């Protein structure tokens, strides 16, 4: 089911089957180019498949943007242990809702991507780790898997290729941290979702300490079209080093929010104006969080930018998972900063101290500022605390909390200061009377 109208600016590659009747069934899938890539891959060497993926410039769609072909080549094929293909469908980065339509409308594309990964690393078993809230998607995936077994596209000797592959779904139960790859593996092993120290990386010691390929839903979904079109043609859809198309989840103060498949490098202003129908109520653009809540915010004057990994990195932000959150002139940035920090504080797994304590104290100080009880140096204190957390945590969750906070307080410092100026507690710091930070 589609929740928003498609846009004429879209380039439909991963979403080409969206909206077809019975798009989740094997029959529809096969009638619309489904499994062609797998059949082609089955006659290729693993090296040739990886080469095609490297040529495509596909980069991890979960947010980190690591080259997928390279990631797959790290898995030791000759290792005598079983190897696993794991899908990260724990989509929980605020602002991100793209894996949902991918699984809801075309579950078999994901399965085909997993099968091709299986061919590459000599794996015969895959797990799809789906966040617990997406129960209806687990049911959709389970039905698609059952259908694929019934029609000979999963199981033993698939379509006479001699390749065996099994796929299982696995439910999470509400933990953002489990979107981090090593925490996901812990969770999949039936433990608390606490990240592991790396190295070794999952490619070498992943699920049950066996070599594991672990990618985001959208990354696997891109693989069949890469093999069908050829890596080079797929790369050419995007910008140099940023191949292909990407699903962007546009939300916030626009007229037509939605999930749209656009070429990598699509201009952000055009995305807001042409694809998402412009600003709601004719108001002025104030800022955009370009890739999910962990990505540093862009002011309106920084938004004339191609949306790809490298361009956003150069602008000191990130493409992340493509969750584009658009804010108009009425948006209160202190409230945004507080809401973001409440999220990361809630989701911090508590394993390492800089993250556990840093997010907690940042939440307390932001709450104090938001309640009109801030002190003069609070904006500076927020900045300093967040900076202290940056790069010093066990996993990227600490950075994910620090980066947007630093950008917000740097770019909208005047708004934090205006809150503090109105506070009856503003000058207390000058008297050297320490005031305890909120409860």
């Amino acid at each position: 089911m589609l929740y928003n109208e498609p846009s004429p600016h879209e380039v439909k590659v991963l979403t080409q089957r969206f909206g077809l009747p019975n798009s989740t069934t094997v029959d529809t899938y096969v009638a619309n180019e489904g499994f062609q890539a797998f059949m082609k891959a089955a006659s290729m060497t693993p090296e040739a498949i990886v080469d095609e993926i490297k040529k495509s410039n596909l980069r991890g769609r979960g947010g980190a943007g690591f080259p997928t072909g390279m990631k797959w080549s790290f898995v030791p094929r000759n290792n005598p242990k079983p190897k696993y293909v794991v899908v990260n469908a724990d989509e929980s980065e605020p602002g991100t809702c793209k894996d949902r339509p991918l699984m809801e409308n075309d579950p078999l594309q994901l399965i085909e991507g997993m099968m091709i990964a299986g061919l590459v690393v000599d794996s015969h078993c895959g797990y799809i780790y789906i966040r617990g809230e997406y129960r209806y998607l687990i049911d959709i995936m389970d039905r698609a898997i059952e259908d694929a077994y019934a029609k000979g596209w999963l199981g033993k000797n698939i379509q006479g290729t001699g390749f065996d592959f099994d796929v299982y779904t696995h439910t999470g139960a509400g933990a953002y941290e489990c979107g981090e790859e090593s925490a996901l593996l812990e969770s999949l092993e039936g433990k608390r979702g606490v990240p592991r120290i790396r190295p070794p990386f999952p490619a070498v010691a992943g699920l049950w300490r066996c070599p594991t390929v672990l990618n985001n839903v959208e990354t696997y979904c891109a693989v069949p079209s890469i093999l069908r079109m050829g890596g080079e043609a797929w790369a050419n859809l995007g910008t140099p080093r940023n191949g292909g198309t990407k699903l962007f989840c546009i939300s916030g103060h626009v007229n037509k929010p939605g999930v749209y498949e656009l070429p990598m490098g699509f201009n952000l202003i055009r995305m807001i104006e042409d694809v998402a129908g412009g600003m709601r109520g004719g108001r002025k653009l104030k800022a955009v969080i370009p890739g999910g809540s962990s990505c540093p915010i862009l002011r309106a004057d920084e938004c004339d930018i191609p949306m790809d990994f490298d361009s956003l990195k150069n602008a000191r932000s990130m493409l992340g998972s493509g969750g584009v959150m658009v804010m108009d002139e009425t948006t209160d940035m202190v409230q945004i900063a507080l809401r973001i920090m409440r999220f990361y504080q809630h989701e911090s797994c508590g394993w390492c101290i800089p993250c556990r304590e840093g997010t907690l104290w940042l939440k307390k100080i932001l709450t104090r500022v938001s309640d009109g009880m801030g002190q003069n140096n609070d904006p500076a204190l927020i900045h300093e605390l967040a900076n202290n957390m940056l790069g010093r945590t066990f996993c990227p969750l600490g950075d994910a909390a620090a980066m947007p906070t630093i950008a917000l307080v740097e770019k909208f410092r005047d708004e934090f200061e205006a809150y503090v100026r109105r506070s009856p507690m503003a000058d207390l710091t000058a008297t050297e009377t320490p005031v305890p930070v909120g409860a």
Partner: protein
Amino acid sequence: MTLPPELEAKFSEILGKYPPQHKRSALVPLLLYSQDYLGKITQELVHEVAKRTGVFPVQVEEVITYYSMLHSPKPMGKYHVQVCTNVSCQLTGGMELYDHACKKLGLGHKEVSSDGVISLEEVECIGACSWAPAIQINYDFHHNVTPEKLDELLDNLRKVQ
């Protein structure tokens, strides 16, 4: 503990997904599906799940306290209303929607009505950002929710009772 046959079948299905030496992997799915089926996670269930997955009960407990969808020891209502207030929803009225739900139900965060039918929770991003503000009632998504639409949904929960 004797499980209802339907849940017993679900247990076998879930345990069958993992190699026998790694049945601990079934822990979270077993707990979540049990909670859905039985309405709560009891001590008896903790021991049963521990036995089935080959771990100590305390290892089940430590997993339960980690995951926000596992509600133990306090169960949530038969209809668990989850209102998202994260950034995309915040920008489109999610906070106001949550306040509205609090007033309408007379409940706060993670509180359950006295008859155990309805509970409320302010939740983190549920992955409906482009169709915000959004809520989930149990596992059902509701998109672009207005206070009026929320009233209608909540009134219906009472009616089906």
